[in-house]
């Protein structure tokens, strides 16, 4: 296993403690390190970038303002002005995910969002917020979310069942989509990288063909940049759509 580590596409997802050999519940792992890095990067952009609060923004302040306005538009567009109470949550989620995805694309880094437990924790946070806020604000009326109006009584049990199943599948689809995209992208990059080194090691005609997978890596990296931002956006907008159910239940 150790010999094949260089081209083992799964190795990059391994989580191991940095300061001890025993894995405990609070071990500071490589994943923890990158969670801290991601949080610090977002903080650097949003807090330090805006520290001067100038009327004519610097480059970093303009980037911070653009991030703010982009997420604010998404939130307003899907939930209306009422949804701005969830703006900090959606903004933090979006920025955390997009920075995780982008930092993960740098070689030798760790992609926080390639861990199903992380994406599922985010999804559970979103669905938990939907449930808690929906019930706190609308009480039993929130359950109308599962009972669409204007459905024949005969079909109602089936419709309600389908609605409940679709609601329960939301956290799963939300978390698996992001996790799988990150995982698949990084495995693909690693596999193509492995092709290059294997072809070079084989020698002969394979050496001449080695630039082909290298070119593919370049294109895939560009594609992965798109996926990194797109998946963060998808995560944020689906979060908005689900939270919108908590604000305005009953379709």
């Amino acid at each position, binding site marked *: 296993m150790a010999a094949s580590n260089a081209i083992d596409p799964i190795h990059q997802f391994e989580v191991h403690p940095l300061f001890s050999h025993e894995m405990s519940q609070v071990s500071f792992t490589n994943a923890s390190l990158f969670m*801290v890095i991601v949080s610090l990067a977002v903080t650097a952009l949003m807090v330090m970038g805006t520290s001067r609060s100038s*009327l004519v923004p610097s480059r970093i302040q303009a980037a911070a303002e653009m991030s703010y306005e982009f997420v604010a538009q998404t939130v307003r567009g899907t939930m209306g002005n009422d949804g701005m109470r969830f703006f900090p949550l959606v903004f933090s989620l979006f920025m955390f995910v997009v920075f995780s995805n982008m930092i993960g694309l740098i070689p030798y880094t760790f992609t926080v969002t390639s861990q199903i437990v992380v994406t599922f924790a985010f999804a559970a946070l979103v669905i938990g917020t939907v449930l808690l806020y929906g019930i706190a604000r609308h009480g039993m009326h929130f359950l109308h979310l599962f009972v669409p109006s204007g459905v024949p009584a005969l079909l109602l049990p089936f419709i309600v069942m389908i609605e409940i199943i679709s609601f329960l599948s939301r956290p799963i689809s939300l978390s698996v989509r992001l996790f799988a995209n990150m995982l698949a992208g990084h495995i693909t990059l690693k596999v193509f990288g492995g092709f290059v080194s294997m072809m070079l090691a084989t020698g002969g005609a394979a050496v001449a063909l080695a630039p082909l997978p290298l070119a593919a890596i370049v294109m895939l990296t560009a594609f992965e940049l798109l996926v990194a931002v797109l998946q963060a956006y998808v995560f944020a907008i689906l979060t908005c759509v689900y939270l919108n159910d908590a604000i305005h239940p009953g379709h």
Partner: protein
Amino acid sequence: MATDVFPPFDTSHFGAQLVWLAITFGGLYFLMSRVALPRVERILENRQSTISGDLDKASAMQRQAEEAGKAYEKTLADAKAKAQALIQENAVALAAEADAKRKAVEADLNAKLNAAEAQISQMKSRAMANVDAIAADAATSIVKQLTGTTPDAGAIASAVAAAKA
């Protein structure tokens, strides 16, 4: 560490990941909601109000300039009207004065004319009176030359009067 489990599904590190995720994401959420987002909102509001304030100021200044332009035009028109009125007034006054002078001169001339006419008629009547004496003298001397006698003065006078009539 080399377990055969696919690393993302290895539950042994789930606890540690969740703990650190809670710490880091919780900290991030706190910083964003308490510090960063209100600050950006304030910046954007500040900019919006500055821009709209500047626009308001600019439009107020424009209105002021327009008012000044209107006032200038009004002053100009007033001055023009006043000048016109003054010209009119002067022309009327001058015409009246000239008329009065003309009338005075005319009256003067008429008076002089009348006086002259009176003098002429006076002189004429006086000359006519002299004509009788001259005619009588001439008749007397003519008669004396022709007849050698001095005619009666009364007869001469009546003859002159007859010739005059």
